[in-house]
């Protein structure tokens, strides 16, 4: 039982590493698309966070008290952890382009817009059904297939939480397959209502 509990912790940490590294990629592409230093800095901060997560993860794996014959299973876990860190590093390198003050080449914007998985931004209008709803209630992924990565409110960036309430004028930065982009834009502008 004790082992099972410990193992649960290991897995949760790995899932957090995987999700954070993927979020970083999306945010890094967003920072290029919008030439935004703030988003790029966010990526750099997450990179430090991933470094410490990764160390915690490795310590958890090493202290799990596995038997010699199980060592191969645990090597698999350690290697997966290394991969997520590598992805996080790649994201940080993309963000660095923006932080170095290099104006992103126009081709980069086109690439991000044309790719299968894209990042997009949508301004929430007063008449949108999203206005006044929390992200949990807004069910944007279910409606559009797009994930909200960040919210720009005035000069502030907000990291989305389920309880974050969407306000008119917010700019949503979201990622997903290109097909969902139009649905999100419609939902945010208020030209389409919820299907429910």
């Amino acid at each position, binding site marked *: 039982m004790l082992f099972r509990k410990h*193992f649960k912790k290991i897995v949760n940490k790995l899932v957090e590493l995987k999700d954070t590294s993927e979020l970083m990629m999306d945010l890094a592409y967003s920072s290029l698309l919008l030439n935004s230093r703030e988003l790029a800095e966010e990526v750099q901060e997450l990179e430090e966070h991933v470094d410490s997560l990764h160390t915690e993860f490795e310590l958890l794996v090493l202290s799990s008290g596995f038997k010699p014959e199980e060592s191969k299973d645990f090597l698999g876990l350690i*290697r*997966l952890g290394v991969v997520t860190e*590598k*992805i996080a590093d790649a994201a940080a390198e*993309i963000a660095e382009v923006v932080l170095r003050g290099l104006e992103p080449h126009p*081709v980069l914007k086109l690439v991000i817009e044309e*790719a299968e998985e894209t990042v997009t931004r949508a301004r929430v209008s007063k008449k949108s059904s999203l206005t006044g709803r929390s992200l949990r209630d807004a069910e944007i992924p279910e409606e559009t297939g797009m994930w909200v990565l960040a919210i720009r409110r005035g000069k502030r960036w907000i990291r989305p939480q389920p309880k974050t309430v969407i306000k008119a004028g917010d700019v949503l930065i979201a990622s997903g397959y290109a097909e969902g982009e139009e649905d999100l834009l419609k939902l945010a502008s208020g030209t389409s209502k919820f299907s429910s």
Partner: protein
Amino acid sequence: MEGLEKIEYKPVSVRDLLVEMKDLSELMIDLAYSAALFHSDELAKEVLELEKRVDTLAYILDMNAMLAARDAEDAESLVGVSKVAAATNKISDAAADIAAIVLQKIDIHPVVREAFEKVEERLGRAEVKPNSIIAGKRLGDLELAAKIGVDIIHIRRGKQCIINPNEDETIVEGDVLIVRGAPFGVEELEGLANGTVREFEGRSI
């Protein structure tokens, strides 16, 4: 060790190259995690095939970017493109690392699978055999998404990669199809491609 492909300069737009690299690297990550979770050597080998493709694209992109720079200002703006390409290449390397874990028979604990499965979707790989009833068919005519809930997200035809093929694409014998969909539909598609399923939606096509 297999020989590496000889690299020759080809005039291709940097934009097309980078779009393909970005799409492939993201596809590879999804495929690699799927390979790890389902212990699939086939998916893992496909990741390694795609990895070679991304490496080649990276070389061609760098050559084209070098030729595109006429002055210092161009160079400043193109170095960012080159950096981003290097990062997508690094992501594809990371995917290949996962594939290597699978091929070296290093197991990943089953509890990890539960935690990683966010959606009721899986990826599958199927090679189109000569006797398959879908060989020679147009994607638009097959209506796979409507009939069995499966999308073909990628076709590898020899060294050529067709990402997100459109409905005018015709499936050819020997194609490697990467599909996404509900587990049942993915299995049906695999059967259709290898020729063991001879009927489609209860009727022949």
